[in-house]
């Protein structure tokens, strides 16, 4: 593979019938969304059956930390989407630093989430404390693992873009990585009110 030269790059764009990224990645994303949908249905059923525990349990959380993490993930999604826009204009190498910045917001998310877990742990709350805490720890940790995987994908694809491993106008890999990262953000947009705001 030859190195990338922005001066000779053709602007990259998709036809209306094309998906952003690989079909395989979208099958994976749809499977992930299905798994999270089952979790949300379980969470909703548990809320109906144990309304008092959910009301009391939600009061033990700090909505400000959830709010901060929502702002952080939305910013990460913006940075990654901006990276794709830049790659369409200048070629795939242009998205590397934006992907790294997006992964950086994932790191902030992890720090805030771990601090929250530590705070709850020191206060004596665990998976066994109540039905609410079981679902809170389980769903948010499951989501946290997806944030970590999203960061790994962004960093790996960003490095390959910088190394010139893809043709300048071939956006399938970076668009696949970006789509996964946006899926993680989309899930959090529902999870945040489900556990922090709706009491």
């Amino acid at each position, binding site marked *: 593979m030859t190195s990338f030269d922005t001066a000779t790059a053709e602007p990259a764009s*998709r036809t*209306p*019938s*094309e*998906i*952003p990224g690989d079909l395989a990645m*979208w099958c994976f994303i*749809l499977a992930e*969304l299905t798994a*999270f*949908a089952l979790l*949300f*249905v379980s*969470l*909703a*059923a548990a*809320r*109906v059956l144990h*309304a008092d525990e959910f009301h009391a349990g939600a009061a033990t959380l700090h*909505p*400000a930390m959830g*709010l901060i993490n*929502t*702002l952080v993930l*939305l*910013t990460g*999604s*913006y940075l*990654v*989407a*901006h990276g*794709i*826009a*830049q790659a*369409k204009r200048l070629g795939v190498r242009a998205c590397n630093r934006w992907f790294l910045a997006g992964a950086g917001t994932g790191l902030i998310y992890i720090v805030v989430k771990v601090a929250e877990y530590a705070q709850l742990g020191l206060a004596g709350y665990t998976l066994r404390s109540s039905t609410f805490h079981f679902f809170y720890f389980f769903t948010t940790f499951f989501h946290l693992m997806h944030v970590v995987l999203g960061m790994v994908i962004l960093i790996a694809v960003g490095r390959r873009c910088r190394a010139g491993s893809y043709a300048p106008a071939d956006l399938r890999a970076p*668009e696949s990585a*970006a*789509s996964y990262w*946006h*899926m993680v*953000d*989309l899930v959090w*947009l*529902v999870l945040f*009110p*489900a556990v*922090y*705001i*709706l*009491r």
Partner: protein
Amino acid sequence: MSSTKLLAVAWIALLALTLLSGVAGAALHGGWLIAAVAVLVVIKGQAVIDLFMDLRSAPALLRVAVSVWLVVVAVTVAGAALA
């Protein structure tokens, strides 16, 4: 509007709507809070789907599938809170 400007506007709007949902969580209670939050979740999620995921120009089936997922989970979570 260029795509980069559109993304920036969408990002600022999403941050504003998120702060609004935080304020709603503190100021509203009961059914009004649940309805407001559910509407905000769907608006924000659809913006992520259309503008960040860029599914506006993708095959309609994919865009509809992800949008339906968003509405179903938002309504499920809100419905359970209302029950």
